[in-house]
């Protein structure tokens, strides 16, 4: 990777659907390194926000400014969806697919896929059709598929929601490693423990707006608003 | 209201469009035409699905009567067949003095010849002509297309080949291309149309009264005047030859 695609500047980003504003206006800057964790209640717009950043949602024109042309920006990102999308192929072919798209030979790609399957704990399932996997296995597959092209910017939408404790810890290690080797991670989670473990910065979304944001330590030890406090306590939001 | 099965060549001639309104005016009969191949027309009659048939294929007609499908056969009129071919006439069929000679010329030149090939009255006639000319029509030049008169003419026009057609279909035919009428007039080329009402003894439901009324009209003087007077491009197509009996 030569020049980075980050930082990303957002000015007044909004997402509308069926005459309703789902998100925004959001103005912020996504800096070049670290891990940002997005938290917030169900329906607060976490998924919408991540998708908008990734360019999957129709949103305010020109609200996002990257440091490279669109093609480069698109090629250097990866996304792990909240409900993983399985292609009608074997696990190995699913994981290898991004490499095949990038022009790698089939043999190479499949070898790399086997390696990544091993890392996320799917080696036993390599030849299964992807759609028969269990919920947790699907999330692992999606993660391997996202990591295999070593993206500069990685979005994860509740990547550990269906994982057991052990797998969650393993995935957290993988994510920490990726962050170490320069991957910018932006993820959402409902697990406050996970947020504390992984985050450098935290964004608290509420009603489609950034309600509060800041470095992890300050955010968790001294939340500024009553809403944030209530959310962290698991209370009814005011 | 009655149904009559007629052959394609009769319908294509356009004579029906002249006769039907007059029939309705004179007799109050609404005659519905089913335009089909000769064989199919006879089958419709045999099954009792129509009240009468008007065809031109003597042998098949006699068989039809013999099987009791119709009460009788009534000759109404005739037209004639003509030989059509490329305007340049590479085989020289136009210089022939008889139908036999014309066909022999075409066969000798191995010029493309389109045959109806569908067992229709016209096709049977053509085969009988080949027989009397002493030619066995086989080979690459002889194309049996298995289609109605109009479609066969189309094919001939597309291939720029020879074909035998009834005069009415030829005159009515719109897509002449390079084709021209090369030979006509030999009496063997005459083509008799006959009317046969379906036998009510075999099919009780047929509208025999209407069929008889229609027959009466078809042999009348009004019909004679209309049939003899029908022309396309100044040419007379049919000759009325019904005998009063």
């Amino acid at each position, binding site marked *: 990777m030569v020049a980075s695609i980050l930082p990303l500047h957002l000015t007044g980003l909004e997402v509308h659907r069926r005459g309703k504003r789902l998100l925004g206006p959001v103005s912020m800057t996504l800096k070049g390194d670290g891990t940002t964790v997005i938290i917030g209640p169900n329906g607060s717009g976490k998924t919408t926000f991540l998708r908008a950043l990734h360019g999957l949602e129709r949103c305010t024109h020109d609200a996002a400014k990257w440091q490279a042309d669109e093609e480069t920006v698109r090629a250097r990102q990866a996304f792990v969806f909240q409900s993983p999308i399985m292609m009608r192929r074997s696990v190995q072919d699913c994981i290898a697919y991004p490499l095949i798209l990038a022009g790698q030979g089939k043999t190479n790609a499949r070898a790399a896929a086997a390696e990544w399957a091993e890392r996320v704990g799917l080696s036993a399932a390599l030849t299964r059709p992807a759609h028969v996997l269990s919920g947790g296995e699907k999330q692992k597959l999606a993660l391997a598929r996202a990591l295999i092209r070593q993206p500069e910017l990685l979005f994860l939408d509740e990547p550990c929601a269906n994982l057991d404790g052990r797998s969650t810890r393993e995935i957290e290690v993988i994510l920490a490693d990726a962050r170490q080797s320069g991957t910018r991670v932006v993820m959402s989670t409902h697990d406050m423990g996970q947020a504390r473990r992984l985050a450098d910065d935290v964004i608290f979304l509420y009603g489609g707006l950034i309600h509060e944001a800041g470095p992890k330590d300050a955010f968790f030890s001294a939340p500024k608003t009553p809403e944030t406090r209530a959310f962290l306590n698991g209370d009814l939001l005011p | 209201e009655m*149904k009559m099965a007629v052959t*394609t060549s009769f*319908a*294509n001639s356009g004579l029906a469009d002249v006769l039907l309104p007059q029939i309705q005016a004179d007799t109050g009969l609404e005659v*519905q*035409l*089913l*335009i*089909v191949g000769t064989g199919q027309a006879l089958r419709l009659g045999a*099954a*009792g*699905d129509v009240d009468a048939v008007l065809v031109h294929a003597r042998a098949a007609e006699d068989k039809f009567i013999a099987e009791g499908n119709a009460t009788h056969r009534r000759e109404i009129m005739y037209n004639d067949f003509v030989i059509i071919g490329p305007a340049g006439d590479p085989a020289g069929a136009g210089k022939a003095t008889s139908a036999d000679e014309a066909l022999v010329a075409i066969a000798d030149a191995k010029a493309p010849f389109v045959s109806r090939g569908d067992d229709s009255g016209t096709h049977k006639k053509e085969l009988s002509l080949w027989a009397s000319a002493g030619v066995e029509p086989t080979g690459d030049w002889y194309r049996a297309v298995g289609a*109605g*008169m*109009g*479609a066969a*003419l*189309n094919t001939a*026009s597309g291939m720029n080949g020879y074909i035998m057609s009834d005069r009415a279909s030829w005159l*009515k*035919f*719109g*897509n*002449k291309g390079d084709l021209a009428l090369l030979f006509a007039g030999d009496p063997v080329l005459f083509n008799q149309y006959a009317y046969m009402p379906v036998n009510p003894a075999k*099919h009780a*439901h047929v509208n025999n009264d209407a069929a008889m009324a229609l027959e009466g009209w078809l042999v009348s003087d009004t019909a004679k005047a209309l049939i003899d007077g029908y022309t396309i491009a100044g040419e007379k197509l049919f000759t009325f030859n019904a005998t009063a009996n």
Partner: protein
Amino acid sequence: MNDILLGLAEAARLIVSFDPELIEITLRSLQVSVGAMVIASAIGLPFGAWLAINRFRMRRVVIALLNALMGLPPVVVGLIVYILLSRSGPFGVLGLLFTPTAMVIAQVIIITPLIASIAHQAIRELWADYHDLLISLNTTKSQRIRALLWDGRRALLTASLAGFGRAIGEVGAIMIVGGNIDHATRVLTTAIALETGKGEFALALALGFVLIALAIAVNFAMHALSRTERSGRW
């Protein structure tokens, strides 16, 4: 080439002048084809859904047969219907031969397999989605079929429209069972065949263009209707 232009001009003239005969055969075409589409959809759509939700031993065979029946040659269907409806056939007493009803019957036979086959294809995907839920909710077969047909209605539109398309353009069968009788059973396609036989290509093409315009109009109408009715992106 010239014929095509002449045909277009003639088509325009016929339409602009509201040619009464054209209107008559056009309406009859519409009536027969829409009738056939409605009846065939009423049979084919539920059958396609039924086939999608049932697992039985001969299922693959039935599906392959259904697909094969899409290839039913119209002339053969016409013949068989003719033989059945003919005065000397088993249903002769009904006197249906050479009526628009007979044409509808023949077309229903031709397009039902097509509609059922496309419907089966579309419903199969939806059923894969809904399978667990509908089984879990302890639905009866007919409740399942109803839910699938309703929720898959937009995809099923293609099935019905494909059937309509096949019906409106069809000529082989309705020629035999309808007889192409002027003012009784003549429709656009049989008129086209007749004019083609006469070598009147321009007129035949003109009628053909009218028919195509009609098919387009019906399709736009159906799409518009289905769009008005839909609330989401389904």
